[in-house]
Every structure is written in structure tokens, then in C-alpha cells.
């Protein structure tokens, strides 16, 4: 290298000096670091996100929200670990579990199932929880067999099929009111969890059409051919699996043809892809000069009504935040391991669900009351990215959403509430499609 040679320093000298410096530095640092430190043990929880991390405005953000609320209420500290690729899952879980202060490690997402089992096996004195995971049903060599549960590992799963049925009913009834032939659904990767959404959504739409025909038979008969009532059952729901939970443009390309076919509302079951769906709706609004929908889209996981107020008719909320919050509480109260044992490693949160005798729900359709809580999520996203996310002030958002809801006939909201009541009481049973056979069976009936 010209620089070195011109100063007359031989290359050999450089190498020798470099090696000496490196050894000295490492030795010195080693001595400094290995001095024992005393620190007060804190109670920490670690939340390991799925790919996509923060800012997805649904799944991962909900988990962190729950962690933050736990921090506030239980005096714990949350550590966030973002997984950028699948290769990060196990290292993230391990690094969290190796921290002596961490008492609970949460893995957010179905894809972390196997790695959660591995980590739980490696750290038997730590508590692990997975959202949407199915750890009971995987086998990991040297750790456990299929069907076995580990004493320190809990799956928290949700009754997404019930919530999806509610929004499916909402969408279908809107379609009858506005004389539109279809509702739509944009899905992510075709995994078993999403089948619950898909079949629940279609079933809810079907229930709603039957309800409409039974309760308003004259109106139903008088519906024009463009109305969903006249669309054959198996064609009512336009849906596609985009194969991604992170590529927002795929949300756009999937939703566009649905709106062109006059779908009244498109259900987002692909996390951040809702933003792609929103782009289509925004373009239509601009083109037609609309202040509010139709067309609508339906949010998922978090309350997404605020993202484009007036155009998101409602959201199917999956309270991942409550899952993380409750798990923290159970660990703090020392009831975690008992729950794992009593519930066979899996707790279900949904509509009317209880855990250890206490009503512990996790699925609901968004209401105005939830809105403020979630507008805060948008505020946080703005801080994170430095870009504007909220379309207006929280008050403006609140007004737009309530205006939109009031503009829809009350019998639609009443019907959805009726369905929710019937689901809660058990009068109707929303099909839970968890295997390929289930899905095939229901697709044969509902499309």
C-alpha cells in the first residue's frame, strides 16, 4: 500500500504491531469485563417479533403494545428483539433467555413455533409463551414428541374464526345495502392460522345473507342482480393468498381487481398489506371525490379504523396485546406454570372465553371506544419512522369514524351484534377450519 511504504514502515512491522495491539486490547478488556458486578435483579420480559417487526400497525405492534402496558402496570421492563429473517428467531430467543433478569420470553407468530420449543428445552427455568404457536404439535429431537407439552411453554391462540365471522357478516350486509355483488379478502401466507380467518369470514357472510333473507324477505327478493344476495354462494367472497406478510405492494395488486369487480369491502388478513389495500381505496376516493366509503376495507389484529378514517368500516381485533399482558401477569403472580399444566399447554382467547375462571377475551370487532387506544399506535409509528401516519388530529379521526358508522343503517350493526350474542351463547357455532380437510370441505360449500 502506497501510504505505508512512503512512510518507510515495513509491512512486517505493521502486522506485528497490529497483532500486539489486538492481543493487548482483548486482554485488557477481558480483565475489565470479568470483574463481577452487582446489580439489583429486575423483572424483564422479552418480546421477539416476527419478520416485519415494528411498524406493521397490527400483529407485531400489538405484541409490543401489550408489553408496554405490562411495563406500566406490573413494573417490569420489556426488551424488544426484532427478527429480520427466520434465521434470527432462535438466536433472539436464546439471547433473551440467557439474560438472568428475563423471566418471560414471548415469541410472536406461528413461524416461531419450532424455535420456541428448542429454546424452551434449552432453558427449562425460563417461561416461554407463543402467540399463534402450536408447540404441542411439533416434535423436536431431544426435547419433546408430538402431543407432549413442556412445563415452561404456553401457546396462546385466538378464535379468529369467530371475529372473522362478525366482519364477514358486516361486509355481506353492507353489500346488500349498497347493492354490490362481492366482498373481498386479501390473505398473507397460506398457513393454518389463516384458514380460521378464511372460513370464518365466508361463513359469517353466508349467515348474514340467510339472516337478511329471513328477516327482510321482501327486500331480499327485490334486490337487483348486482346485489350479493343474488350472487351464487360460492362466488360471494373474492379472496387470494398473496404469499407474504410484508410485501405491501402485493396488498395493492391483490385488492385492485376486487374493487374493480365492485367488492364493497376487502378484509385485510395480511398485516401490513392493509396499507396496500388502503392505497386502492384512497385512489378510488380521490378519483370519485369521496369523503367516506363505500368502498371500505376491514382491518385486522389491531384497530385499524384510524388509518383511513371513513373508509375502514371496522377491524377484526385480535388482542395480541392482552395475550402478552396476561402472560406477564401470570408470570408475575406465579400462576404461569399451573396454567400450562391445567390447560395442556394452550390457552384460547376469543369471545366469551375464560381463563382460570376469569373472563379473558381476545377477539372483538372494533368499537369507537377502542379507537383512541389505537390512534396512539399511529402516533408511535410516526415517531418511529419520522413520517406522518395519522391523517389528522385524533379528534378529527374520531369524528370521521363515528360519522361513517352512523351513516350505515342501524339494522346492519344490530344484526352483527345479534350474531355476536349468538356466538357467545353458543347458539351458533362458527366452523373452525384447522386442517386441510376442513378447509376443503368448507370451500366446497362456501367457495
Amino acid at each position: 500500500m502506497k501510504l505505508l511504504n512512503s512512510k518507510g514502515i515495513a509491512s512486517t512491522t505493521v502486522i506485528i504491531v497490529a497483532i500486539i495491539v489486538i492481543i493487548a486490547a482483548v486482554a485488557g478488556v477481558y480483565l475489565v469485563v470479568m470483574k463481577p458486578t452487582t446489580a439489583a435483579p429486575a423483572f424483564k420480559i422479552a418480546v421477539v417479533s416476527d419478520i416485519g417487526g415494528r411498524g406493521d400497525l397490527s400483529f407485531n405492534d400489538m405484541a409490543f403494545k401489550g408489553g408496554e402496558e405490562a411495563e406500566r402496570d406490573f413494573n417490569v421492563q420489556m426488551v424488544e428483539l426484532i427478527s429480520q429473517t427466520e434465521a434470527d428467531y432462535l438466536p433472539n430467543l436464546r439471547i433473551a433467555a440467557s439474560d438472568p433478569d428475563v423471566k418471560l420470553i414471548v415469541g410472536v407468530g406461528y413461524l416461531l413455533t419450532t424455535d420456541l420449543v428448542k429454546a424452551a428445552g434449552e432453558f427449562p427455568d425460563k417461561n416461554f409463551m407463543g402467540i399463534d404457536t402450536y408447540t404441542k404439535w411439533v416434535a423436536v429431537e431431544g426435547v419433546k414428541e408430538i402431543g407432549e407439552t413442556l412445563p415452561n411453554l404456553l401457546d396462546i391462540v385466538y378464535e379468529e374464526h369467530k371475529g372473522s365471522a362478525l366482519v364477514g357478516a358486516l361486509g355481506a350486509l353492507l353489500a346488500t345495502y349498497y347493492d354490490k355483488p362481492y366482498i373481498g379478502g386479501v390473505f398473507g401466507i397460506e398457513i393454518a392460522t389463516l384458514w380460521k380467518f378464511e372460513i370464518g369470514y365466508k361463513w359469517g357472510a353466508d349467515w348474514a345473507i340467510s339472516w337478511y333473507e329471513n328477516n327482510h324477505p321482501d327486500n331480499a327478493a327485490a334486490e337487483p342482480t348486482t346485489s350479493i344476495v343474488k350472487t351464487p354462494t360460492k362466488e360471494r367472497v373474492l379472496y387470494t393468498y398473496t404469499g407474504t406478510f410484508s410485501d405491501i405492494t402485493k396488498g395493492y395488486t391483490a385488492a385492485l381487481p376486487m374493487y374493480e369487480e365492485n367488492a364493497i369491502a376487502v378484509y385485510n388478513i395480511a398485516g401490513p398489506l392493509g396499507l396496500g389495500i388502503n392505497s386502492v381505496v384512497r385512489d378510488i376516493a380521490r378519483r370519485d371525490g369521496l369523503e367516506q366509503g363505500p368502498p371500505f376495507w376491514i382491518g385486522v389484529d389491531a384497530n385499524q379504523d384510524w388509518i383511513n378514517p371513513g373508509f375502514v368500516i371496522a377491524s377484526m381485533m385480535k388482542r395480541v396485546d392482552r395475550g402478552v399482558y396476561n402472560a406477564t401477569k401470570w408470570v408475575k403472580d406465579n400462576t404461569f406454570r399451573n396454567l400450562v399444566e391445567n390447560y395442556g399447554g394452550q390457552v384460547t382467547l376469543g369471545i366469551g372465553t375464560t381463563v382460570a375462571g376469569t373472563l379473558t377475551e381476545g377477539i372483538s370487532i372494533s368499537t369507537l371506544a377502542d379507537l383512541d387506544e389505537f390512534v396512539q399506535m399511529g402516533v408511535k409509528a410516526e415517531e418511529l419512522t419520522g413520517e406522518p401516519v395519522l391523517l389528522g388530529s385524533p379528534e378529527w379521526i374520531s369524528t370521521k369514524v363515528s360519522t361513517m358508522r352512523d351513516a350505515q343503517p342501524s339494522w346492519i350493526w344490530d344484526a352483527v351484534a345479534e350474531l355476536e350474542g349468538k356466538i357467545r351463547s353458543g347458539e351458533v357455532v362458527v366452523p373452525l377450519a384447522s386442517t386441510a380437510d376442513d378447509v376443503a370441505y368448507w370451500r366446497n360449500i362456501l367457495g
Partner: protein
Amino acid sequence: MITRIERNANTEINAGEDEVVARLFGTIREHLRTLKRPLADSLFALFIGLLIGAALMLVFGHNPITGYISMLKGFGLFIREGSFNKTEFLEALAYSVPLMLTAITFAVGMRAGIFNIGAEGQVYMGAVAAAWIGGHLVLPTGIHVLVATAFAMLVGALWAILPAILKIFAGVHEVISSIMLNWIAFFHVPYLIIHHFAGAYAERTAAILPTARYPVIGASLTAVIFVAIAACVVVYFLLWRTRAGYELRLVGDNPDAARYAGVNIRRAILISFIIGGMAAGLAGASQVIGRPLLGWTLPATLGTVFGLGFSGIGVAVVGRNHPIGGIFAALLFAGMLNGAKFMEYDFGIPSDLVVAIQGVIILALAVPTLLPMIRKWVKKIGRKPK
């Protein structure tokens, strides 16, 4: 193998075994002599990179010393829990496997005077090839691993031959063709996975059968590291101990001389791409059948193989475009990348900082080459008014 008798004033040439030993020592001393400068350059560049990394950490309000201590955890040092040391060190070794291989892809290309930056796509193709053989075919133990590896290397080589052919017969610049083929592979492989090679789960390939897995040495490290190192050594021998390798290097060093000497330039370029493709294919395979951490599968998001091809370019540069240098550079980079997560966990230092430091190291190696060029250009400008 070319047999040459080296006359070296410092060694005695004796008959029989002594002659071999003398020749060996002569070769090693020869290598050490030529090694000194590039090693010095790389160490200096490493130093600059770490210095600027420390400056960046300070700018963002972090303590660089504690930050680097955290990073060193990636090599297995400074971790308090006794059981962790070995795991992380083996992790770093496992991480270095694909890096040393994709470094070969770029390095062998540079030696022949071409920019083979198609390692990214070649890795994807090799990975999916290994995933197919490993998950969907049933073969006896041992043979299964061999066939999966060999097929992955073959597919990687075939994917690399495409830009080679385009360059040789149509003069298409390999940068354009290899980047485009990277993108083609980027979309084609997930399609193959989701629609043809998926197993029980829709978003990844069928699990690699036990008969196709490399034996695990410890943590995330399997015997594939021996294959990788062997590949580096083989490439070294090919390039420095065979006529074809000599010709390849000549084409890169001095294309005119090569042409005058009657070297078949087309063949040299083709060989360079083939070697590069095979190495990249092996790198892809290593992540599917040779790395337990990644779950013995290839996900449709390509998350476990994404970026390896491009990281290899940096490793190659730090390894001075030499297959053996690449091994050491890969170990360094792997340790640093492995340590990134500790920096993030302990101090909230973004893991991207490690990539930034590595970028500076690469720049620090590139800049000195620029200096004489800049000097010449300045002199030229100074002369113009006369």
C-alpha cells in the same frame, strides 16, 4: 500439477525426501513474503473500519468500548454463562461457511477480470436444488448428502453459465446479466417452493430428511464446514497449481498478454463462472442441509439465504480475492455479524452498524488503490495549461 524445481539461495536442494521438504519450505517462505503486504493492508483497513465504527457509535451516544466487547461475544468471548461460549463460537464458524464460498464466486471472477456478482441468485438456486433432493428424494445415508450437495453445485454452476454464455457469445456485460438473473432467481425460487417443493407447511420446503443432513458437530455447525474449507483449498490449487488456473489469472492480470500467448480467453471466463457458480451453489446448499439453526428447510421468503451472495463480495475484497484469504475474512465477518445481535441486545446499538463497519473496511481497502489513480489525474490536470 506443474512440477517446477525452485532454485532458492536459502534452501539446499537435496535428493529424495529432503528435496520435497526444502521445496515445501521454499514455497511457504515465498508465500509468507507475498502475504505480508496484503495482510498488512487488510489489518490496516480493519483498524480504520473499527475506528470509524467507534466514531459512529459515539455520534449516536453509545460507548464504543462496551459496544465492541458485545460484538466480540459473537466470537464466543466475554459471555458470562459458561455453556454459551462454545455455542456462539460454533455459530460464528457456521456463519462463515456460506461467506467463504460466495467470496470464492466473486474472487475467482475478479482473478479472471470479470465481475461475477451473480452469487446471490446462484445461492438461491443451489439452496432450492438441495432442498428438493434433500426433502423429496429418498436415498441411502451418505449418498443422499453427496447427491444433494453435488446437485446444488451443478445447479449453481448452470445458473452461472448463463451470464458466461451471454458474455462470450453476445458481449453482454456480466454485471447486467448476473444482476438480472439474481432477480429472476429471487422470484422463481419462492414460486418453486410454494407450488412444487412445499411439504407439510405451505411457506417452506419439505423438511430435509435425516439421511440428507450433514452430521452435526456442535450447536449450528455441521461437517459442511470441512467441505467448504476443502472447496477453498481446491480452488486455490486450481488457480495457482494448474495450467488452466494460471491462464485464468493471466486473462485477469493482462488480457493482451494472454491473447498473445494463445490462451483461450473464452474458456478461461467460462471456467471462472463455473467455479463461482459451484461455490455459490454449495453455499446455498449449506444453509439448507448443513445448518440446524435454520430448521432443515428453505423458507419461501428466502430469509435464510438472502444477502449471502452480496456479503461474499465484501469478504472477497477483505480476503484480497484469494480463496484462502477468504476463509479468514469469512471468519472475521461471521464473528462480527454474529456479534451484532449482542450489541443490539446489550446496548440497543443497531445491528446494521456492524454491516456499516464492514463496509468501511471494504472501502478502506479500495481507497488506497484509488490514491495513485487520483494522483495521476491531478498531475494531468496540472500539466494542461502548458
